[in-house]
């Protein structure tokens, strides 16, 4: 199918983009990579009056290190971050997770911030941001808001972004410790059924993030003294999160995937830290 008609605006600066959003609010949609939004427009799942294309705003196409965090601008594509030379050193979790985001062809255009803005509960980048306890930077005419990942992503495809706000960047903290990432999907590059990311903070404690089990990524600190403690913690987590049923998997299958993936990922992160 083809999209319904919409006005197209392509601002050259963040100031112009924010002014358009102030004028149109929820009637407008921000277009970055468009790898989900264009599909939704073609299927007529969304019908905005105005499309604000931010892909040619040069100031948004940058990756910087700021105060111990890596700031990724809203026009930076997933493949650009994947090819960024500092990635393996500063954000090894992202280096592990990015190859699972869509396909080579969609990563060429899809953006890091766009994926986080879309807030799919099974998606890799919102999960990584949540586990690393990163932040989302929002600009409007009123000024800048900085929200923690858990404040930003509120539920299924729902975020704290107001209609007049533009996500200008996300910030991933540079953290020390072992990391690991795994997911199960029907086919590599498809939407994950369950994804798990881990950060080993110390010998005894692991930050474990789970996607695809609830309305948004769930992050908890688990006791990781030994294999038995990890297994117990993951078992507890599976029952606590419950999972849900859709065409891909039952809640029971999701819990089972979490038990298997969760234990393996936690052990991997711990080994990687050692």
């Amino acid at each position: 199918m083809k999209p319904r008609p919409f006005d197209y605006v392509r601002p050259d600066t963040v100031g112009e983009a924010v002014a358009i959003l102030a004028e149109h609010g929820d009637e407008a949609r921000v277009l970055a990579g468009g790898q989900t939004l264009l599909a939704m427009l073609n299927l007529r799942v969304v019908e905005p009056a105005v499309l604000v294309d931010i892909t040619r705003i040069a100031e948004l196409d940058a990756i910087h290190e700021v105060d111990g965090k890596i700031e990724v601008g809203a026009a930076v594509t997933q493949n650009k971050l994947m090819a960024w030379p500092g990635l393996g050193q500063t954000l090894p979790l992202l280096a592990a997770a990015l190859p699972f985001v869509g396909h080579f062809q969609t990563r060429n255009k899809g953006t890091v911030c766009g994926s986080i803005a879309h807030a799919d509960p099974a998606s890799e980048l919102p999960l990584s941001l949540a586990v690393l306890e990163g932040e989302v930077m929002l600009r409007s005419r009123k000024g800048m808001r900085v929200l923690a990942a858990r404040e930003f992503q509120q539920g299924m495809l729902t975020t704290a972004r107001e209609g007049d706000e533009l996500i200008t960047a996300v910030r991933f903290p540079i953290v020390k410790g072992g990391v690991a990432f795994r997911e199960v999907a029907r086919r590599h590059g498809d939407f994950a059924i369950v994804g798990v990311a881990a950060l080993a903070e110390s010998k005894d404690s692991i930050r474990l993030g789970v996607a695809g089990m609830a309305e948004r990524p769930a992050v908890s600190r688990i006791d990781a003294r030994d294999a038995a403690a990890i297994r117990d913690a993951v078992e507890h987590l599976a029952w606590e999160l419950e999972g849900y049923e859709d065409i891909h998997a039952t809640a029971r299958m999701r819990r089972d995937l979490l038990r298997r993936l969760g234990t393996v990922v936690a052990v991997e992160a711990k080994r990687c830290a050692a």
Partner: protein
Amino acid sequence: MRRVSKNERVKIGLTLNGRKLSGEAEPRMLLSDFVRHVLGATGTHVGCEHGVCGCCTVMLDGTAVRSCLTLAVQAEGRAVTTVESLAAGDGKLNALQQAFQKHHALQCGFCTPGILMSFTDFLQRNPNPSEAEVVDVLSGHLCRCTGYAGIVAAVLEASNATQQKQD
């Protein structure tokens, strides 16, 4: 700042396979339809129109993208490269196309233009890929008749051929 109202048809200029061309489009026109129906380059195929099948893959400023997930107006002033660019002027197929022919990497050929453009981009960045890397890139395409083994063999041969030429 570029502004186009809905239902307004504006002139969009871009470079298609090295030639500067222009045509008219509304904001909602997809790049895939613009290339085929307005510019008349029908080598690019349209399958699912929501980014899953990969048939419509073209190169935009040298990187492989879905043309059904790109608006024509977004390609304004940029370089679009399609399957028509691959063969030489006299019709001689390039190394990648010849390898596809040799390994029976196509049957009906509907998905082939997109696959060729994905690997044209990929082999430029990664001239000597492993089989696993080729399979990973191919996961962004659907082929419903030939299967994938011939395609993987063709890409690996084309990459080796390119490699030997450089040596």
